């Protein structure tokens, strides 16, 4: 089997598995919606305040939802041993791992894009900022999956990896949060956001190239 065959086979397999266990798709999405609903309840329904902090709320919630969904990335494969098969295959681990991360993003990251406009309207975000919000989510959430994969790969062998995972991953999410949140904020005030978008693109490209390498070596470490 050639490398590209193996790559797409891994994506296909993970997508099929996810479709058979739909709660894995629904849980991060519901969490995302719930957290955003909690903010107006906690702060008070003041339209101006909510509108001002809407980009931050949406992005912080996306960060938390992405982090919560991370555990499912390698967990079941680690438990049933298919992760070892991936590591033993003749293809480079980092490429196959990238396929797994892409499949995971399609299942947990992409749905956030679908509900984000609705939630933005809940929070009173101006309509002209919606496009930028979607664009930042499109560029930013894959980065969250890629960086998060490093953290999961390091902790997948641990029984109680959950708490330590947030400590490992959240500080590394800071740049994405800053640029994405700021881009949406600026777009809301009608300012140009090319710089932020370009930086997000470059962060995404860097993460695509670099992140699978530590993920692969961390998985090898976790397995033995």
């Amino acid at each position: 089997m050639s490398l590209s065959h193996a790559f797409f086979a891994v994506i296909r397999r993970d997508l099929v598995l996810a479709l058979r266990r739909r709660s894995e798709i629904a849980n991060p999405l519901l969490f995302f919606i719930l957290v955003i609903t909690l903010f107006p309840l906690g702060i008070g329904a003041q339209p101006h305040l909510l509108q001002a902090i809407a980009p931050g709320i949406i992005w912080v919630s996306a960060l938390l939802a992405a982090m919560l969904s991370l555990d499912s990335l390698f967990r079941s494969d680690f438990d049933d041993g298919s992760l070892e098969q991936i590591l033993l295959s003749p293809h480079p681990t980092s490429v196959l791992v990238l396929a797994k991360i892409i499949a995971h993003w399609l299942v947990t990251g992409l749905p956030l894009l679908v509900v984000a406009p609705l939630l933005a309207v809940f929070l009173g975000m101006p309509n002209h900022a919606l496009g930028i919000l979607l664009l930042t989510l499109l560029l930013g959430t894959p980065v969250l999956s890629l960086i998060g994969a490093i953290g999961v790969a390091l902790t997948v062998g641990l029984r109680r990896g959950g708490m330590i995972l947030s400590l490992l991953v959240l500080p590394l999410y800071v740049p994405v949060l800053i640029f994405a949140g700021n881009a949406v904020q600026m777009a809301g005030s009608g300012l140009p956001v090319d710089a932020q978008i370009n930086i997000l693109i470059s962060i995404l490209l860097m993460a695509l190239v670099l992140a699978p390498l530590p993920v692969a070596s961390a998985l090898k470490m976790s397995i033995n």
Partner: protein
Amino acid sequence: MFSIPDPVVRFFHRMASPPHFYAFTERLMPWLVVIFLLLTAAGLYGGLYLAPTDYQQGDSYRIIYIHVPSAWMSLFIYVVMAVAGAIGLVWRIKLAEIVAISSAPVGASFTFIALVTGSLWGKPMWGTWWVWDARLTSELILLFLYLGVIGLYGAIDDKRTASRAVAILALVGVVNIPIIHYSVEWWNTLHQGPTVTKMDKPSIHVSMLIPLLLMAVAFKFYYLIAMLQRARTELLLRERNAQWVKAMISESK
């Protein structure tokens, strides 16, 4: 082709062997302590007595002699940790792994000191304990990165595996620190309200600079002392079944 002189290679080979490392650091330790004490005494004397009072900030600027060297050390130690981790990862040298993990708590302490002194300095300068200043914020994130390293090491039972995990994490962190730092700096310039007066970094007078540099070198020695002490303990713990540890203990009885 550049080649490393033989005595240097031999030194590193000897240092990679636990008994040699243990004996060598034991002999080295008193010297390090003496140098550290001398440098600290000179630096503090220069900084607290000889250096003139700042015309803008009065005497409160003198916290710089703790704050700035700690902040420097916090980054320096992270890089040392990543380099030692990488050496351990590539060549499987046990001592490099031990140096990497022994550096983490020392680095975290320096980061914490930098944060606390920064906040103490901020009170008279900015009128509040905490502002989301770019440097303070990136120090805070650096502290989280250190805590992640320490937490990960503690969470994995097998210490050789834990060392490899820590090395990978430290390397990821080292790639990310510049990105985090510059993004925080960029964020700060946009969010910083006009109420916070950002002072231009004053060009520092030489009578203030010399004690600062002395303190910076003194802190490097302190790091060496603290890190080596931790490394020695860690080494004994990991090698407790080795012949040389048993021999050493039975000798000292």
